[in-house]
């Protein structure tokens, strides 16, 4: 049972990417990113049977970093919300020409 988890992981990753591309709510985009990270975790775990326990250790690190990133990212969204009154990414246009 080697390839099935990898396929699932790929699918989840693709779905997460679609979510990042197509949603306008910043929080939902964030959640899609979390989904992508989880897909990667799944693929690591899937190969750990053949590579050793190092893969699972890697997953731990990924989770940790994901947590830190979620915290900071959400703090940023809160700060932005205070400025714009919404979390629609269409409002964030200061980098525009």
């Amino acid at each position, binding site marked *: 049972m080697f390839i099935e988890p990898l396929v699932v992981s790929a699918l989840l990753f693709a779905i997460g*990417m679609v979510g*990042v*591309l197509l949603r*306008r709510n910043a929080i939902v985009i964030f959640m899609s990113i979390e989904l992508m990270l989880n897909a990667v975790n799944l693929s690591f775990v899937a190969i750990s049977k053949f590579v050793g326990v190092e893969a699972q250790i890697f997953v731990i690190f990924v989770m940790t970093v994901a947590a830190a990133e979620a915290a900071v990212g959400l703090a940023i969204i809160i700060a932005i919300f205070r400025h714009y009154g919404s979390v629609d*990414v*269409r409002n*964030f*246009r*200061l*980098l*525009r*020409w």
Partner: protein
Amino acid sequence: MVGAPVLDLLRALVQEAVTHEAAFAPFLPSWMILLPFIGFMINGTVAYLAPERRKLVTIVGPGVLGLAFVLAAINLMLMAGVQEAEPVVRTYWTWIEVGQLKVDAALQIDQLSIIMALVVTCVSFIIHIYSIGYMGEDPGYARYFAYLNLFVFFMLVLVLSANFPLMFVGWEGVGLCSYLLIGFWFTEPAKAEAGQKAFIVNRIGDFGFLMGMFALFAYLGTLDYQGVFTMAPRAFEYGGPAVTLITLFMFLGCTGKSAQIPLFVWLPDAMHGPTPVSALIHAATMVTAGVYLVARASLLFALAPLTMTVVAVIGGVTALFAGTIAVQQFDIKRVIAYSTISQLGYMFLAVGVGAYTAGIFHLATHAFFKALLFMASGAVIHTMHHALEHAGEPAGEDMSQDMRNMGGLKSYMPTTFKTAWIGALALAGVFPLAGFFSKDEIIWSVGARGQTVLWIIAIITALLTAGYITRWLVMVFHGANRAGEKARTHLHEAVALMTGALVVLAIGSVVTGWVNIPEALPLLPEFTWLHHFLHPSFAAAEHVLVEHLGEPAHASPIGGAEGMWALISTAAAIVVILLVFQALKGKKYLPVREAKEPTGLLGILYHKYYVDELYDLIIVRPFKWVCMFSWRVIDQGLIDGVAINGTAYATRFGGWVLSRFQTGYLGTYVLIIVVGILIILGVVTL
């Protein structure tokens, strides 16, 4: 930097004055050139700072010329004393030294150059004296003498140089001075344009000279006369393409400078300048530079028989062509101008058939009697101008110079009248005046070398010459005066300075012919001094000609010896003069206000065969069109519009397009990142 050559020059000058050499030792040759230059500097400074100081200019201007003439005479006598003197080259400093090319500032004193220098300084000196009287009231007095001195300086550089580039410096310099002097009264547009025309047409010729020089250097690697003429017979094959090309190009320069077909159109317009300028530059000196070039490079020309033919044919045709035009001109100076073109044609005819001495001989005699004729015209114009002004009538050039307003001036200007007759007879070639000997020798040489057609053309032109000059005399000096009642009372003889100069030139017109009396003439002592004197200069060329073409015959194409033909030509000339005189003496010419333009055949002659109009049509107009096109379409439209502005616009547009990518919108950036990743992944996995 500048000081070094000047110091060298000073050192050389001092050395010159004290050294003596075994053979011919030239006496201060560089001072012949320096004196006019000093005159230019002084007069130029006066003209610039204090134009009213005429006394100084009057002394310096002609003074330096007088000294230069004395020097030239001394050197001539020194040289004449030595049998077959070798040319002496004096090098003053190295001018150009680049790669294989080495050109020095050097003067060559030999028979040909000293004769030329003598003619130039003598006639220039006389004309300077004349100019004191002629330009006495002109506000540009100092400037005039400055330019005139500069001109003589350049002319002497031209004839005394020892290599082609230095000659070209003189060549260009006289062209420049011609421009300055023709357009001397530059505030009148017609005169300024005449100066421009002269310079531009000359330039075309200069291009030819330059190409000839370049080709010469390419083949021989040197441009010094000594070097070139030593190497030429071995380096060039007789009649080969190389030497033919070189000489043809050089001849193009000659047609420009000496006003032959096709570049003669500037000379009649040059009559807009002051009359002494016309006398000096456009009769005696500058226009003869072309003849001098052919004579100097005689060896090269002798090696190219095709070019010699071209030279002779153009000379002959131009002589006839200009002679016909002179028959129907009404401006007193224009007649003489076309006569000059015609006589220059004679000189080229002579050097074109290999009669180099005859050509130079005619050059010298022509200098005297043509200058005389011009200066007589000048005296007449001066008087007419004064008279019309005092009478309150229009006194512009078209009035004071038109012969239809003159007539009967012999009673008002006796000295001018007599000297003008002498000059006219000399021009017509009547024995014993100068023109007879020189012109006769040319006609004889042409015939003796078997050129029948050219010989006939020369004879016809001689008769034409007698005709038009008689017409000129009759219209100006004989018959009834047409200047009008009021003006007539103010007519008087010219000032003493002017008439004095006229007399001197008249004497010269008589005497200069006697330096070369051929043996063939009956009753006269043989005195072929000029031939012998100039022989070393032309020995090499004549050797080549004899080698390839044989000796010239001693009979004309239709038989008869030289003596007989000399008699015939003089007699014919006298007959023509008498006929024309009788025909026109009583003719009632209408003054300008009432006269109509000639029509028909005479009209074509009057309009100079419409050559100027033709040139305008086929050369000037297309050239202007090309310029307009280059300006509007290429420069403004293509280069400015498309290349420069277009590039800027394209850059800006590209920038605008690319700026659309920066929406500032997060989603766009994510999309771009994703697409990029997909592409990379695709490349990696596939």
